[in-house]
């Protein structure tokens, strides 16, 4: 059936089987392989994208269920060569090794900071508890999210002063 989904602000339309999962619909779209397809059982969080601003596991969502909804993937974070603060935080604090979990971690963290700009360590750990990293031990990831929160707070302050 014909499905049209807004992905990163662009309308993507394709004829798919109703059983196609959102993660595959996204990854079959040219240029959008950043969303990773991991455990396929909604445990690992590598496939997390934002649906109407909320993080969801795209391996456990049918593409047809997303018609009429806005999807944001990891590709939307960087704008005109400018990294999103969470991406920059991951870079600054070396919050990835193999990088497989990173797209999901980034989108989950972005959604957290959008809802709660000043999270505690516990709140960060809770937010990413649905995402599994088998390399870092999470310490650097938690630090990176906090880095992004501080960076965005400083930016807001600068804007207010300016």
């Amino acid at each position, binding site marked *: *059936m014909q499905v049209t989904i807004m992905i990163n602000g662009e309308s993507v339309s394709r004829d798919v*089987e*109703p*059983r196609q*999962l959102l993660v595959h619909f996204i990854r079959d779209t040219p240029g959008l392989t950043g969303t990773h397809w991991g455990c*396929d*059982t*909604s*445990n690992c*969080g590598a496939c*997390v994208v934002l649906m109407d601003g*909320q*993080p*969801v*596991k795209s391996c*456990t*969502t*049918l593409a*047809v*269920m997303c*018609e009429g909804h806005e999807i944001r993937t990891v590709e939307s974070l960087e704008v005109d060569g400018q990294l999103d603060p969470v991406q920059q935080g991951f870079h600054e604090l070396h919050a990835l090794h193999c990088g497989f979990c990173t797209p999901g971690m980034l989108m*989950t963290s972005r959604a957290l900071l959008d809802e709660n700009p000043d999270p505690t360590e516990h709140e960060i750990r*809770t*937010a990413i*508890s*649905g*995402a599994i990293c088998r390399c870092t031990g999470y310490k650097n990831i938690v630090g990176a999210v906090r880095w992004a929160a501080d960076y965005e707070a400083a930016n807001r302050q600068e804007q207010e002063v300016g």
Partner: protein
Amino acid sequence: MQTPARFQYERATSVEGAIASLEEHDGDARIIAGGHSLLPMMKLRLANPEHLIDINDLDELSYIREFATTPGLPADEIRIGALTRHVELLKSEVLARYLPLFADAEQVIADPVVRNRGTIGGSLCQADAAEDLSAVCSAVRASVVIRGAGGERVVGMDEFHVGPYVTAVGDGELLTEVRIPLRPGAGSAHEKVERRAGDWAIAAASAAVWIDGGTISEAGVALSAVGPTTVHLARAEALLRGATPSEELFATAGQIASEDCSPSADGRGPVDYKRHLAGVLTQRALRRATARALQQEA
């Protein structure tokens, strides 16, 4: 790659339309809401519906509200729409005020990302014995509204739970609402032990007590993950009813919980351990529920 078998998909635009479609497909259709129980089952081919009816657009099934069964009198019931998502149950101020065991449970149901999609109706209809909300609803004496082409019926949790993964909801029916009675002097709590964040329970206990003049006038206790279905501890409830809350009483209720559950050994632990856990968690849940009823929570 895990892919469900082929099916047809339709998006419901009304509750009546969803029920009409269920009737039309006569047992071959399933309702999909969050999909976080059904899609994994479909990927494993444990569920093979030929037709999926997506109810995510039915906003009229998403609410948490106080309700007065007698117009003009104060609210005496909480009504929760079937499409209400876990995240909304977790954040609800109404539930936090009247039924704090919901937040206890929701903090440990799956993970925050899954909680953005999963719904109370879906969780209850999945009827997995390890599922937390079934025990929660059993403890607080909830009933569910089941609607079919012929109208609505309201059934209590004991009647709702027919067997493992089987509920009283028929082929042509839709669970639309959960109703929980409110009575004064209530306290409730949910205690769970899991292997790691987001996992199913090794065991979990839900408890509700209603205290009147220093005595437990009514109690509800139920367990998750230690039997083929949610375990409703009628014998513990009978012990608690009319008794004065004390540590000894909670310990005896815990002993009953250990005896009356029927866990099986698996990767989460042996039978003895799960029985022990059921007892300890029952005791803790009762202690916390009572402290909340007496507004003495530490």
